[in-house]
């Protein structure tokens, strides 16, 4: 966008910047607080003396988390899971989104597949039967249990499908005239044009896999195969029924504040690292004739 330095633009820009700064601060301050908590002594944290800056600076929580061999083990498991799961998600998402984006004339069965997919999105089964099926298909206690059942992220499929559908028809039409078939259309035309959408769904998928602690909790029995978030989650006891805990456990449970914060910081770092790289895909325009930023 070529912008002229008119008065109107100046004021407008100023207001926009101001609003963004406010929003940014609103988000930043609590994050700083969490970071500070994670770097403060337990006593200071418990007594509520930590503001935006660490009080009685210490790496204790991080040391505690990192010294454990299990931490690194589960970190590796999570990385594996993200790559494997992210890959599977991406492939399956594209494979499903493309046919669904076609018109009924080109693909008559399309509507039925569509409703099937939506149905699956809305009707999630409850724990016990789900666990059952996973067990019976032999996936239990393996990394496949973490990536296959969740292999089709329906929300992403619908997003991508819409995106495909709204791609400029002109390109597609001319390709069809050239005699291209469906597979080629998908790989050579639609996918390359869909970079922002692909980046979006990939990001969602990565974040989803990275943050997911629940399936690790239920489906993995061997401590060595547990993903990072599940492991960290298990360190923080969240029980409401305290009668079953020994005094030792109760005391541990009560003093989790710095620990919780460190856990969040560590869990967020990889995303923080990846996100700026993915950003450029969001920001770059794809339509022909646009001025790149």
């Amino acid at each position, binding site marked *: 966008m070529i*912008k002229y330095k008119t008065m109107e633009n100046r004021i*407008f*820009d100023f207001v*926009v910047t101001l609003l*963004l*700064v406010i*929003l*940014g601060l609103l988000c930043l301050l*609590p994050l700083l607080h*969490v970071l500070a908590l994670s770097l403060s002594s337990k006593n200071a944290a418990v007594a*509520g003396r930590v503001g935006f800056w660490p009080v009685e600076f210490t790496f204790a929580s991080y040391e505690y988390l990192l010294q454990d061999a299990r931490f690194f083990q589960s970190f590796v498991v999570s990385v594996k899971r993200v790559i494997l799961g992210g890959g599977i998600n991406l492939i*399956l998402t594209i*494979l*499903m989104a*493309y*046919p669904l984006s076609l018109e009924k*004339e080109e*693909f*008559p*069965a399309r509507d039925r*597949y569509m409703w099937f*997919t*939506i149905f*699956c*999105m809305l*009707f*999630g*089964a*409850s724990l*016990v*039967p*789900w666990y059952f*099926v*996973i067990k019976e298909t032999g996936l239990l206690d393996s990394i496949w249990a973490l990536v*296959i*059942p969740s292999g*089709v992220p*329906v*929300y992403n*499929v619908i*997003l991508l499908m*819409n995106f495909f559908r*709204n791609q400029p028809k002109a390109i597609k039409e001319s390709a069809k005239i050239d005699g291209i*078939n*469906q597979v080629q259309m*998908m790989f050579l035309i639609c996918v390359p044009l869909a970079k*922002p959408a692909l980046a*979006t769904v990939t*990001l969602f998928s990565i974040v989803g896999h990275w*943050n997911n602690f629940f399936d690790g909790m239920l489906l993995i029995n061997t401590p060595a195969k547990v993903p990072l978030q599940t492991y960290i989650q298990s360190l923080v006891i969240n029980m409401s029924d305290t009668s079953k805990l020994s005094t030792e456990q109760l005391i541990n449970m009560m003093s989790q504040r710095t620990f*919780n*914060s460190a856990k*969040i910081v560590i869990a967020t770092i990889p995303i*923080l690292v990846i996100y*700026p790289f993915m*950003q450029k895909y*969001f*920001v770059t325009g794809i*339509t022909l004739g*646009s001025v790149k930023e």
Partner: protein
Amino acid sequence: MKKEKKKKVSFARTWPLHLMLLPGVLVLFVYTILPLLGNVMAFQNFQPILGFFKSKWVGLDNFKYMFMLPDTFNIFRNTLIIAVGKIIFNLVMSVFFAVLLYEMGGKHFKKMTQTICFLPHFLSWVILAMIFRDLLDGSGIINTVLLKLGMIEEAIVFLGSNSLFQGIIVSTDVWKEFGYGAIIFIAALAGINQELYEAASIDGASRLQKIWNITLPGIKVTVVLVATLNIANVLNAGFDQVYNLYSPIVYETGDIIDTYVYRMSFESAQYSLATAIGLLKSVVSFVLIVLSNYLAKRFANYRIF
């Protein structure tokens, strides 16, 4: 314009498409549809020891029970208010933020702000609840400031007020999610044809007019899509958040379906009831989505699905 005879598309032409869909459909079938068979629990008095086949069949009893509980009306009402509030305000705020970023010039500042605002999504409610409880406590910062400014005479127990609780839940959730939710819109905005703006400039349009006439319509499709998909969540008011922020004194406006069921299941694994409610939620979401799809097609000529 002659109407061409509709050509029947041969299977020979479409089989690659079916093949493409096959792996995904298979996964969905095995891991989403098959477990649905287990929803039979909703119609039983399910005891783990008896399993699916020996547990007593009770038909619609579980559903009847749910509706006859004294608090059912309250719980549903609270859930709807909170969930709808979240859907609307999250949408508005995400779009607003995405547009602000879009209008923004400086590349680095833009990237930085985007990253910062995107992070609260990753904080868990366990920690956020602690932070908000401190902030909103009778002797917390917000009260102290308000008292000093003379805007109130007595400290307000924010999280204990039935009139304020729902608003607090919605606004804190919006704060947490707007950055992450904006991502879709940022991607969509990237696809708007720049020539439109130049043409508008030539016509003498102001910044605001450009936003109103080009930017927003440009992502209208995405907005409708996201809104519709989110309708599926109209009965999910956010267990984690409410659970960590509520207390018995705000049960009246704060107790949602999920927290109620949680307390029930906690005492004694009430699988049947939990499943029944899950089933109910799914049915409602399904009906709503079908409805919105139909309405969009009929009145706005949009095809969402």
